[in-house]
């Protein structure tokens, strides 16, 4: 709760800081503010709070854990906005303010206990993202991305809202726990068609936000057109918050309807894994590959939803937490390196990374660790993320799905190796110079590498905490 208040106040404060027209203050300022919020958020760990505002919001360990991920992700992302500071971008304060506001939305999506709160959270997050996707006003691709994202996103939100309305019609309540008991009550059996359509529409709405197939078609185009800095935010914070909200919805409100949603989610999961991985293998642009890869990771996270079987605690929920964390860290590292290289070399395809191992060993190493983590190779957090999720699913008997996921991750190896091959095995292009990286970016990249390896060597600290 305090995180939401602090983030909102800081967001407004940031807007006022913009009047100073001194971009130099903004970046360290925003990072410090977020660090403060991160610290405050952790103080709520294992503290029992009564639900806020008539069951609108709850702050429990689940909320704290996922809020922690989105805050940490944003903190380590911010240094890569240095090029805006250097270029004297006149709207920088607005960008930061929008990021902070969208975090408010993300925290609401993680902590909601009431469907209206979920809707408000998703809207806050999405509207900020529509604006940020089009933030590069003079680039037609950025405009295209914003328009596509807005049009399709608005539809998806409409469908989500329709679903919430139908759910309310069927049960007479918005509060998650009351929804669960109303669905389980035998006298409501006659309302089932309305209920099921409502659930289906909600799954579609949230499925769109987390880019799960078959609602993923916007992802590659929007990710590609959006400025890389905001793409990184989109593919980490939005996805983490979306999955936290998804799991909570299924586990707290809809466990009684499991027989209905379980096959749906399983089918979505298999389809997402297939389209994400096969799509990524066909790309030649690193950025589009990362876009499809984010679709495929939605597929692995969906396995966690299947394995959770309507439990907000236990192996599957912990697995989703761990996976989201490892995925977010690796993705920020990958996009961070990509942004630095693309800003300097003006290209985003695999060949744009050629010879990076010689010109910028640190950047190349960071990218390598990130790719290995996304591919799920041991020594990195990504391996244990996959391991926890797949082991939880296998434990519940979903062997077919696990085997399919393993086969798909073999496909994943192929395209995650391609940047590594470009960086280390291809010669330096003629006239290529070292990509300039400043001190704080170096420190952040080193931190991301250390975190990824720490998660891969000592996962015991964060596994099984939910």
């Amino acid at each position, binding site marked *: 709760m305090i995180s939401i208040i602090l983030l909102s106040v800081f967001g407004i404060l940031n807007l006022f800081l913009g009047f100073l027209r001194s971009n130099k203050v903004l970046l360290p300022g925003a990072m410090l503010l977020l660090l403060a919020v991160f610290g405050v958020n952790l103080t709520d760990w294992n503290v029992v709070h009564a639900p806020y505002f008539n069951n609108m919001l709850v702050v429990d360990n689940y909320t704290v854990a996922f809020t922690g991920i989105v805050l940490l992700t944003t903190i380590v992302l911010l240094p890569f906005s240095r090029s805006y500071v250097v270029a004297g971008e006149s709207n920088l304060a607005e960008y930061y303010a929008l990021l902070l506001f969208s975090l408010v939305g993300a925290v609401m999506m993680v902590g909601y206990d009431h469907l209206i709160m979920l809707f408000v959270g998703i809207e806050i997050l999405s509207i900020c993202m529509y604006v940020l996707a089009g933030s590069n006003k003079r680039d037609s691709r950025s405009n295209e991305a914003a328009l596509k994202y807005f049009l399709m996103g608005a539809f998806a939100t409409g469908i989500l809202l329709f679903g919430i309305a139908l759910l309310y019609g069927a049960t007479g309540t918005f509060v998650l726990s009351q929804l669960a008991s109303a669905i389980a009550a035998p006298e409501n059996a006659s309302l089932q068609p309305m209920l099921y359509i409502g659930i289906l529409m909600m799954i579609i709405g949230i499925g769109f936000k987390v880019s799960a197939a078959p609602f993923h078609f916007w992802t590659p185009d929007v990710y590609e057109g959006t400025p890389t800095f905001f793409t990184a935010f989109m593919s980490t914070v939005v996805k983490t918050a979306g999955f936290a909200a998804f799991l909570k919805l299924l586990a707290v409100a809809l466990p009684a309807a499991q027989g209905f949603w379980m096959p749906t989610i399983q089918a979505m999961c298999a389809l997402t894994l297939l389209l994400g991985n096969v799509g990524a293998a066909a790309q030649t642009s690193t950025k589009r590959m990362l876009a499809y890869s984010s679709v495929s990771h939605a597929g692995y996270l969906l396995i966690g939803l299947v394995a959770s079987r309507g439990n907000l605690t236990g192996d599957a929920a912990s697995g989703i937490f761990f996976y989201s964390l490892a995925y977010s860290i690796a993705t920020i590292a990958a996009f961070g390196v990509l942004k630095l290289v693309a800003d300097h070399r003006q290209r985003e395809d695999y060949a744009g990374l050629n010879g990076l191992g010689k010109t910028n060993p640190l950047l190349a190493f960071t990218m390598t660790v990130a790719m290995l983590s996304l591919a799920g190779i041991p020594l990195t957090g990504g*391996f244990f993320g996959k391991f926890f999720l797949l082991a939880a699913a296998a434990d519940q008997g979903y062997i077919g799905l696990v085997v399919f996921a393993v086969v798909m991750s073999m496909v994943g190896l192929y395209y995650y190796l391609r940047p590594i091959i470009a960086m280390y095995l291809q010669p330096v292009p003629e006239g290529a110079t070292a990509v300039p990286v400043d001190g704080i970016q170096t420190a952040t990249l080193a931190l991301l590498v250390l975190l990824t390896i720490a998660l891969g060597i000592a996962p015991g600290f964060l596994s099984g905490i939910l």
Partner: protein
Amino acid sequence: MLTAVLLFLPLAAALLLLFIKGAAARALALGATLLEFGLAVYAAFAFKTSGTAGFNLNYAWIPSAGINFHIGIDGLSLLLVLLTTFLVPLILLAAFKHNYDNPSTFYALVLFMQTGLLGVFMSLDAFLFYFFWEVALIPIYFLAGAWGGERRVAVTLKFFLYTVVGSLFMLAGFVYLYLQTGPAAGSLASHSSELSAFYSLKLSAAEQSWLFWLIFAAFAVKMPIFPFHTWQPDTYTESPAPATMLLSGIMLKMGIYGTMRWLLPIVPLGVSQWGKLVIILSIIGIIYGAIIAIRQRDMKRLIAYSSLSHVGLMAAGVFSLTQIGLQGVVIQMLAHGLNVVGMFFVADAIERRTGTRYIPDLGGLTRRTPVLTVCFLVMLLSTVALPLTGGFVGEFLLLAGVYQYNAWAGAIAGLTIIFSAVYLLRMFQRVMLGPDSAFSETITDLTGGELLILVPLIALVFWLGLFPGSFLHLSEPAVINILGLVGR
């Protein structure tokens, strides 16, 4: 404690190497590996021969999942630890002969790889084993890829995909086994991935039948066994010489060791169902590798196919499930490690002097290089399994084991000796003897630094050949233990 030091010393040295350049890097890398070898020798003397692992170290690694950091050394592990720690300094010395870009990184990767290899040989927990299994792969991929020959991109990609796909199958098998286990004593987790927990599982024959292939996939690719071998000749040929030595001298043994420790005792019924098929595949590999080796014109490729042929015999020995066969595998693992590293080093020495390893371009080298000729011949004859050399003891025991299993299999597998005599002596004849080539007068003999590599190898080859008992008695209880578990 000793095991932990053994395991992490190379890693620590590798990390230090990232900050050190030039001659100091060489000294550090070599010093660390020699110290490591000293520690391994100390461990060998301190080792109490018994069937179970000594020097145990067991910490909770992921307590919520029942996964432990459990390492230990039994007789089988000890011999492979000794082999690894003995070969790595020699491989580093061989690397010093080349002027690689970023030498510090090169040495660091070799040391990093050593940690991975030692971890594989010491792990007593399934996930730890898998962890080190992949850790060993990452440095060799970069060694082969970044410093390799012209076709390195495609070749190393194939190598990486092959091996990782194989190990993912193994991981899937381990996850299944893990989910069948109960909680370990005093653990909060509901499952355990301890090796001993896997050994005590009661699995039906049907389960073991498919689990066998899941787990064996990783080992079969790594060894490699026909028909999973297609990555091997290309990768051996395209890799820089030290990486080829690591791949053939040590990494290949990961597959055989894995089969002995993580396959045979866990799914004995699967082994009895499929063992015959694997032996047939191995024998096909022996003949196939040998016939292709005869036709090769590239020295490195020829040795690669010869290694394929020899590993087939080792695989057949493993699945003969006889004590003599398994002991033969142990000795042959050591002998093959020495032989193949020596052969690749000789090929590398010739290539460095002449700039080619294309056999028809060479010839008549022996006149100016008496020492090289002798060293080459010793390594070669040990590979051909001439008595007095380590190769003879290993292959003799192996063939005895396979013969016990099936006389016909033994007879056909025995062809390996004849075939290897054919292709290796033909190579020797055409490279060292034969009509003079452009290099006959200009080639220089081995230097003192190069003898520093070959003399220890040759000494050990003879030691293995003359006193195999000094190694066999170390592994005997471990082998008996494995066979006891298979026969349960």
